[in-house]
C-alpha cells in the first residue's frame, strides 16, 4: 500500500493517545515533586515520595490483600465461567440470545446496585468472613466478562477439531480438555488477566462489603485522600500504573497483541 500519505492519520492518533494518557502522565509527574502538595507540573525532581510509600507498612499490607483478593476472585470467575462458556458456545438451544443477554447484564448494572444487593444477601446469612464474601462478590462481578471473552473465542474454534479428537478415540470430555480448551488458551489467559485487574481495581463494592477489618489498595488510597492530598498518593498510583503496563506488555509478548485487543 502507498502509506506515505497516511501521516495525518498518525498525527491524529498520537494526539488521541496523548489525550487518553494525560491523566496517567499527570499522576506520574506529580509523584516526583519535591514539594508537599499534590500538584502538576512538579517542582523539581525527587524520589522521596516513593521512599516514603515503600517504607510504610500499610501500603504493602493492602497491596497483598488486593492481590490475594484478585487471585481468588479470578479463580472463582474462571471455574464458574469455563463450563458456562462451553455451554453457550455449543449453543444450539432455544433462547440462546436471551441467556447471553442475561449473562452480560451484571456487567451493565451499576456496581452500586450490586453492592446493595450483596449487602442484603450477606446480612441475611450473617457469616462474617469479609475476605471471602468480597472475593465471591468480585467473582460475580468479573465472571460475565470472562464468559463473554471465552465464548467468543470458543465460537471461533473450528468444530472439526473437536470432531477429529472424538474420531481419534477421545471421549466428549477428553476432546474438550485436550483439544478445544488448549486451542483457546491465549484468549483464556487474557480474559483471566482482565478479571484479575477488574477485581484489583474495584472500589465501590469493596467499600460496601469489606467492613472495618479488610482494606484493599484502592480503599486505602480512597481513605488517604480524605485526610491529606500528599504526593505519596501519586507515588502509589505511579507504582500501580507501571505494574499494570508491565503486566499488559508481558501478556502481549506471550500471547501476541491481537489476542489481547480482542
Amino acid at each position, binding site marked *: 500500500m502507498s502509506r506515505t500519505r497516511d501521516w495525518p492519520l498518525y498525527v491524529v492518533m498520537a494526539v488521541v493517545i496523548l489525550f487518553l494518557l494525560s491523566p496517567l502522565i499527570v499522576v506520574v509527574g506529580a509523584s516526583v515533586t519535591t514539594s508537599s502538595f499534590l500538584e502538576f507540573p512538579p517542582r523539581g525532581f525527587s524520589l522521596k515520595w516513593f521512599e516514603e510509600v515503600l517504607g510504610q507498612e500499610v501500603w504493602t499490607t493492602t497491596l497483598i490483600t488486593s492481590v490475594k483478593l484478585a487471585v481468588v476472585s479470578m479463580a472463582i470467575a474462571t471455574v464458574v465461567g469455563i463450563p458456562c462458556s462451553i455451554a453457550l458456545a455449543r449453543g444450539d438451544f432455544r433462547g440462546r440470545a436471551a441467556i447471553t443477554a442475561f449473562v452480560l447484564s451484571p456487567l451493565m448494572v451499576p456496581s452500586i446496585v450490586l453492592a446493595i444487593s450483596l449487602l442484603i444477601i450477606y446480612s441475611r446469612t450473617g457469616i462474617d468472613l469479609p475476605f471471602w464474601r468480597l472475593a465471591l462478590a468480585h467473582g460475580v462481578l468479573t465472571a460475565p466478562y470472562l464468559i463473554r471473552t471465552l465464548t467468543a473465542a470458543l465460537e471461533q474454534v*473450528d468444530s*472439526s*477439531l473437536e*470432531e*477429529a*479428537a*472424538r*474420531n*481419534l*478415540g*477421545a*471421549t466428549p470430555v*477428553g476432546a474438550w480438555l*485436550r*483439544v478445544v480448551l*488448549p*486451542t483457546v*488458551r491465549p484468549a483464556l489467559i487474557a480474559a483471566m488477566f482482565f478479571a484479575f485487574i477488574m477485581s484489583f481495581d474495584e472500589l465501590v463494592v469493596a467499600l460496601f462489603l469489606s467492613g472495618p477489618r479488610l482494606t484493599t489498595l484502592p480503599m486505602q488510597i480512597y481513605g488517604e485522600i480524605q485526610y491529606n492530598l500528599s504526593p505519596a498518593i501519586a507515588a502509589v498510583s505511579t507504582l500501580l500504573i507501571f505494574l499494570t503496563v508491565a503486566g499488559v506488555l508481558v501478556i502481549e509478548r506471550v500471547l501476541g497483541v491481537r489476542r489481547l485487543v480482542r
Partner: protein
Amino acid sequence: MRPELELRNLVRRYGEETVVDDLDLTVEKGELVSLLGPSGCGKTTTLRMVAGFARPSGGQILVRGEDIAALPVHRRGVGLVFQSYALFPHLSVFDNVAFGLKRHKVPRREIPGRVRDVLAKVQLEALADRKPAQLSGGQQQRVALARVLVLEPSLVLLDEPFSNLDALLRETMRSELRAIQQRLGFTALFVTHDQEEAMALSDRIAVMERGRLVQLDRPEVVYHRPATRFVAEFIGRANLFGGTVRRAEGGELEAAAAGIRWLADGAAAPRGAAVDVMVRPDRVALELAAADASGDAGPNAAYGEIVQTEYLGSGCLVTLRTDDGTRLLAEVRTAADGVAELAVGRRALARWAAGDVRVLAGEGDDAGAPVEAALQAG
C-alpha cells in the same frame, strides 16, 4: 466374507428436509468408493452418519456386518480425514499423530515407533517436531492422513481431503493416496464434488443427487453410460440435446435433436418417445470443411463454424456453432501442431460414431431411468 461397509435404507431428515433419502450402498473390503455430487446432495451428511457425527433418521449402518448405530463416535474405529485437516494447532506433528494412540491406551513405549513408521509412509519423518502452522498445505494433508492411518483402521472416510490444495499438488496427492490405499489395503469412502478426482482414483463412483443415489458403477461406465441426464452433465463435458425417436429397430435407434439426425447402437425406445441424446466431446472428430459447405451432413454429423477454442495441453476443446445455432463441443487431440488450422471463424464438419451416442429418457419421461438397459459392457 462380509462387506466392509453396508448402508441400508439410510435416511436423514433435518426438520422438513430430507437430506439423505433411502440410500443403499455396499463397499467391499479394500475398495475405494467415491460419493460424488454437487454441494448439498447429502454426500457429506452420509459420511458424518458413518463417522457418528450425525444420527440417521432411519435405516442401518453395518460395518463388517455389525450395526454401529449405538456406538459413540470414539468407539467406532472408523478413521475420518477432514476437509479442513483439523490438525490440533497446539500439538506438534508427532503429538498429532500420537494423539489417537494415547486415547486407545497403546503402551507408552510402542508409541514413538508406530508414529515414526506412519510418518515414514507419508514422507514426513523430518518434520515430526514442527507445529501444523509451520507446514505447507500438502504436508498438513499428509499429517491428517497419517494421524488416521496410525490407528490402522480397516475403514477410512475422506471428506474432500484435497479441496484446499492447488491443482498440481492435488494430482500428486491423489496419486499418492491411491498408492497408499492399495498398499495398506484399507477400505475407503471418499467424498468429493470434483468429478475428475472421483474418476481418477475410485474403484467405483456413487453419484448422488438431492439425497438419492442415482448411479453406482465403475468410472468408465459412469462416464460413458451415465444413468441419467444429471449424471451425464455432472461427469465431464457433454453434448446433450433433447429430441424425438424417429425409428427403432434391431438394436438401432434413430432420433432427431438439435437439427441433427442421431443414430445410436444398442439403445431401445418406442417411436415418438422424447429422449435425450448425448455424445462426449472426446468422441467427436472434427475436420475442416469448405467455407460454403452446409446442409445435411448425414447421420451423427454436422457442419458449423468454430466460435471458441480452449487449449488443454494434451488436447484442444473446440466449440462449434452449427447452422441452426446449436453449440457442439469437440475435444481434439493436439497431434503435432496440426491443431493450428482449427482456428476461430473456420468452418468444420463434426462427426461421431453411433457406438458413442447414448440415449437417455427425455425430460418429459420418467426421469432417471436409463433407456439403454439392453446395452452390455463391451
